């Protein structure tokens, strides 16, 4: 499936945030969205998800304009992984994951055995079956982030939209979450769109990169094309060196502060 954003401008009533953005990606690709604080990444995401109305422009799934789609139809194609937070009630983890099945249930339906099995399979895929019976409000932040990914996967979407999936996670959990994202994208079953504050993450798990810079600039391309020392300095206003690190067979670029 192909997701296309065409000349999208978004923002609030009298405060435009992002204007005239176009990008295209398909299932199996992973797109990393970079940009300094306050540049409108979250607003852009919310607009793609249909939580905010676009000021202008369209979003297409396989060439179909999604603006008229009912919520449920859209949710069956695009899943959302928000930043983790506390819900007011102490749900069981499995019950939280099963909520992802809503996109496939009618207005008066509630999940049945099939939905539970799908939820359990998703937990198994992410290697967190051991959390299934635990209480969502009592597990760690990293675990909760993985549970939210599981919930989005239970939607069986073609695309996953993740808002800073590694924010406020410790070093180990960040890498675990990134590894999962990598595996999901390379499995070819979903396309991943995520925001991050670390250009390293883009080198690590993105096939495409979009950078929203200051003054309404938008650059879209492969990580190697887009993430250069000069461009990082322009966007983030700090001196950066990009080095190639070799560890056995694995070669990867990393960014280090040049100061």
């Amino acid at each position, binding site marked *: 499936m192909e997701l296309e954003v065409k000349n999208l401008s978004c923002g609030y009533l009298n405060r435009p945030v992002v204007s005239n953005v176009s990008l295209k990606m398909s299932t199996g690709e992973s797109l990393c969205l970079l940009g300094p604080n306050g540049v409108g990444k979250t607003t852009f995401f919310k607009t793609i998800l249909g939580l*905010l109305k676009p000021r202008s422009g369209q979003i297409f799934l396989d060439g179909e304009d999604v603006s008229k789609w009912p*919520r449920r139809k859209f949710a069956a194609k695009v899943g959302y992984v*928000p930043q983790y937070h506390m819900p007011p009630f102490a749900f069981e983890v499995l019950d939280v994951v099963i909520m992802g099945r809503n996109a496939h249930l009618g207005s008066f339906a509630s999940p049945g055995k099939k939905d539970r099995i799908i939820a359990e399979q998703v937990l198994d895929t992410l290697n967190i079956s051991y959390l299934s019976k635990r209480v969502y409000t009592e597990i760690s932040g990293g675990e909760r982030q993985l549970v939210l990914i599981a919930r989005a996967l239970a939607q069986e979407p073609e695309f996953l939209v993740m808002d800073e999936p590694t924010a406020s996670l410790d070093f180990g959990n960040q890498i675990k979450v990134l590894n999962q994202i990598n595996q999901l994208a390379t499995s070819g079953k979903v396309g991943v769109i995520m925001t991050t504050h670390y250009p390293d993450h883009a080198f690590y798990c993105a096939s495409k990169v979009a950078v929203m810079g200051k003054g309404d600039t938008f650059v879209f391309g492969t990580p190697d094309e887009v993430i250069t020392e000069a461009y990082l300095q322009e966007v983030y206003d700090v001196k950066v060196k990009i080095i190639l690190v070799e560890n056995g067979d694995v070669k990867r670029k990393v960014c280090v502060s040049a100061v």
Partner: protein
Amino acid sequence: MYVEIYADNIKRRCKVGGSLVSKDKILSSDKVKLQFLGLALVVLFFGSFLIGRYPVTPDNVFNILLAKLFSWPQTWTDDMETIIIQVRLPRILAALLVGAALATSGAAYQGMFRNPMVSPDILGVSAGASFGAVLAIMLSLDFFWIQLFAFAFGLLAVAVTYLASTKLSKNNDTMLVLVLAGIIVSMVFSSLVALVKYLADPFSKLPAITFWLMGGLSTISVEEVVMIVGPMLIGLIPLVLMRWKLNVMSFGDEEAQALGVNTGRLRSVIVLCATLMTASAVAVSGVIGLVGLIVPHLTRLVVGPNYKVLLPASMIIGGGFLLIVDNVSRTLWSVEIPLGILTSIIGAPIFMYLLLASRRGWTS
């Protein structure tokens, strides 16, 4: 080697089958809990007929109730039949209905507002209904009109709240604006109630108004019970059918939308249903606080937060709780203590105790 493979097989079997089986157990334990609660309610229902000044035996109760359905030889006195059918039956039914309605709408509101501190009258239905009732009393209308006024003004108050909030809210602050509008509308109607009390004749009207506001079922009749069954069912059925979506809703509007819930429509349905039920409850019983707030909590301690079970369980426990309190209210002293007062006096300590005992606080 063999042992290793064997152990591995067992492990795999546990992994594949294990979690499924345990979830089935959990589900069936929820079912057992609901069945147990339902059974307890049935026992309480029949037991309540035996409570009161006029002694009747369980035999009498069954025979008299069944005689209403089948033709049955009369083995009881006419007095007994009057007591059972005219006095105790409407009261018991009304207590069940009112308790169930308040608790169910409270549970639904707590999920929708994502806040366990919310009660069904947060959007102003009680204040509106109170104003309607005291206005009708002031105008010397009869009981039927008092109820109709209470019902109509309860609906009006929530309609004003809802319309104001849709006009005022921009993107994602709907809930906050809804609560704020509810507070304002409640304040206006409370002031109007105070105004009516101030203007009312202190010897004839004021006592009647005060008595109504304290809440109670002592003057209930069969016809009144019949009158509220309809609106309560209209409110109840959609909530029961859509109860699982309340789980999704409690994660907030944006997440619920991203999970495919049409939040605007669901919210309208919940507000409409909860208002219908609460307004009909207030119309027959006056203002009975606390049930809509604490019963969903108690229920959450028993069955957990999943609305699939929580909503029907709240309904049963709410009905049972109010029935017990009403039984106490009509028998404990020779002068009847108004139900609204007794509910708070009995309910608050139980609630505090359970919160302290459970140690898991609001969120469990």
